[in-house]
């Protein structure tokens, strides 16, 4: 062992060339709060990776502001080690990270370093491909319209706000309304998919304990084996939090370029905007509305523009983005929420009122839309759920009206009853995503009026029982719907028969 090391070192010394020459350098003239001002290095490019030499080793920084006499740079490492007078060298390279399939199943920092204590990511770092964190979004020519569904496994979403692969769908709501739960369920549900996307969960500015919990949930559900977690916890420097979504996106693009489908969750872009605001204020960029810098819109649009469905000539891969935004007291007209709403292809709007009433997931169907996903909705679900949105809307209207009316005609009563049943069916706990064929079956039963007689408190029990019954007695119903993605007449007849006979069993 020691002999090996000595030999290796001797070889290195023998092959060591040190060509004398002039090199570009700079000097730290100001340091503090995670940023630094550097003189010299007048040829540095924006976003160039810089190396600051300190007594404790090299610290990396990114050139952010290129001014006439100085460079404003943000530190990516231990800020306390950087002192005035330290030497700075340019690397000539813009910020990039090593990527590879070895990352799947791991938690990494925005600089591509493993943070899960399971050892280094790559056997030999030189074998890993490196990609820049910032890249131009695919052009119009390279894109194709969204045509493959991304099933979240959440009934209310897959039925009424369907998401397509390559789409950008915003999840927005106040704190503690189940935003993360929806994104997490969408990842867990990919286990049920034949053509399973690579999932990337980017945690920005969250407590480390929360991130650890999410990793544990993924692991326990056996979903970590196709997921990458990019972690920039609240304790990380603002610069790393700022870079995290770009890192997640760059990793996603690596897989998309290989023709794979990718799902990226940015949890959340409100904290991302805050970290960018912090850096910008420290670098004395002029503040704008709500003290955010003027280019905050551009920041998020250039990130989300990188979501795409590539055409076949470009490999046919896709990158679906699920950004999350936290609102304050339901105010979606604040600066960052309106920005991101206008950039994305729709939003899933969660409401704390619904959440506290126990209507979970707390999706406000009226305010939620998916502007491109319906083109990609699976036929089986489209067929059964086409009327769902309308029936629910009518139910809401009537429900409000009933509070004043004393006697109702039978038709109205029936509508209200159906609405109550549907509301019950759409309730779904977190961490329990359903394969789409199951969603189709239960929605079919509910909208077809087959379960109107089931007492409401027993609906969940009925649902679980029905799935078990069909699985054991009519197993081909699920497999047929799953493989054909539709419900043909023969399957429908078999399904109706199965539902009817299970209702009889259930009633006993």
């Amino acid at each position: 062992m020691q002999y090996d090391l000595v030999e290796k070192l001797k070889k290195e010394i023998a092959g060591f060339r040190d060509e004398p020459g002039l090199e570009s350098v700079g000097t730290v003239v100001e340091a503090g709060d995670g940023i630094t001002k550097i003189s010299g290095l007048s040829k540095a490019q924006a976003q160039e990776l810089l190396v600051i030499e300190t007594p404790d080793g090299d610290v990396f920084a990114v050139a952010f502001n290129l001014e006439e006499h100085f460079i404003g740079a943000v530190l990516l490492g231990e800020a306390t080690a950087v002192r005035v007078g330290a030497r700075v060298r340019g690397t000539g390279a813009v910020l990039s990270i090593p990527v590879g399939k070895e990352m799947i199943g791991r938690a990494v920092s925005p600089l591509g370093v493993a943070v899960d204590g399971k050892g280094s990511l790559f056997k030999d770092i030189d074998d890993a491909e490196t990609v820049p964190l910032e890249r131009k979004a695919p052009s119009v020519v390279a894109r194709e319209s969204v045509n493959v569904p991304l099933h979240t496994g959440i009934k209310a979403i897959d039925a009424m706000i369907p998401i397509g692969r390559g789409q950008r769908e915003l999840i927005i709501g106040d704190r503690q309304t189940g935003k993360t739960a929806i994104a997490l369920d969408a990842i867990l549900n990919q286990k049920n998919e034949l053509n399973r996307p690579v999932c990337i969960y980017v945690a920005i500015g969250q407590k480390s304990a929360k991130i650890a919990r999410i990793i544990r949930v993924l692991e326990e559900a056996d979903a970590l084996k196709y997921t990458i977690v990019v972690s920039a916890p609240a304790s990380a420097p603002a610069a790393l939090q700022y870079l995290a979504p770009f890192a997640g996106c760059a990793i996603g693009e690596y897989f998309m370029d290989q023709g794979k489908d990718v799902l990226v969750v940015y949890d959340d872009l409100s904290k991302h905007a805050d970290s960018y605001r912090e850096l910008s204020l420290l670098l004395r960029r002029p503040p704008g509305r709500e003290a955010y810098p003027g280019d905050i819109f551009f920041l998020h649009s250039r990130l989300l523009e990188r979501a795409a469905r590539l055409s076949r000539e470009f490999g046919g891969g896709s990158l679906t983005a699920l950004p999350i935004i936290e609102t304050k007291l339901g105010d979606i007209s604040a600066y960052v929420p309106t920005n991101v709403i206008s950039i994305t292809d729709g939003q899933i709007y969660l409401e704390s009122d619904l959440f506290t009433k126990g209507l979970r997931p707390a999706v406000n169907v009226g305010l939620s839309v998916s502007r491109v996903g319906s083109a990609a909705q699976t036929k089986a679900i489209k067929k059964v759920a086409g009327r769902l949105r309308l029936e629910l809307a009518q139910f809401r209207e009537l429900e409000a009206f009933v509070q004043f009316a004393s006697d109702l005609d039978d038709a109205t009563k029936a509508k209200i009853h159906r609405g109550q049943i549907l509301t019950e069916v759409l309730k779904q706990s977190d961490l329990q995503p359903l394969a789409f064929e199951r969603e189709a079956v239960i929605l079919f039963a509910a909208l077809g009026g087959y379960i109107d007689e089931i007492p409401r408190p027993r609906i969940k029990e009925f649902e679980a029982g029905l799935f078990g019954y069909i699985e054991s007695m009519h197993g081909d119903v699920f497999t047929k719907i799953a493989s054909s993605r539709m419900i043909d007449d023969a399957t429908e007849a078999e399904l109706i028969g199965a539902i009817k006979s299970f209702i009889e069993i259930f009633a006993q």
Partner: protein
Amino acid sequence: MKYTPRIYAKALTESLASVSEGKETDIIKRFLASVHKRGDTRSLPDIIDAVSEIERRRVGGRLVEVAFARRHKKSVLDVFRALFTKHDEVVFRTEPELVAGVRITIDGEREFDQTASRRIKKLFR
């Protein structure tokens, strides 16, 4: 808006350039009073640095920093000084962490590094 040392220096050199012979002392006096009035007396060393930089640039000189790991005799330093023109400002430093050798930095921008510390670092990179 606060004045930076660079702005002070620029204002001073431009005023001095436009003033008639013999009036320089008055200008400098008034300049110092104005710096004092704005409470920027503490920045005077930086202002002086900036003035000498502007002057150096004007005559085509450079700021040359020569750093050794240990102190050297004047005759050694003279050898280095002779490498540069009379417009260049050559300053010498002693930095023990360089271990051995010499490092020359021009205008804080370009560097010629032949120190042992850099070689060791490169070897182990």
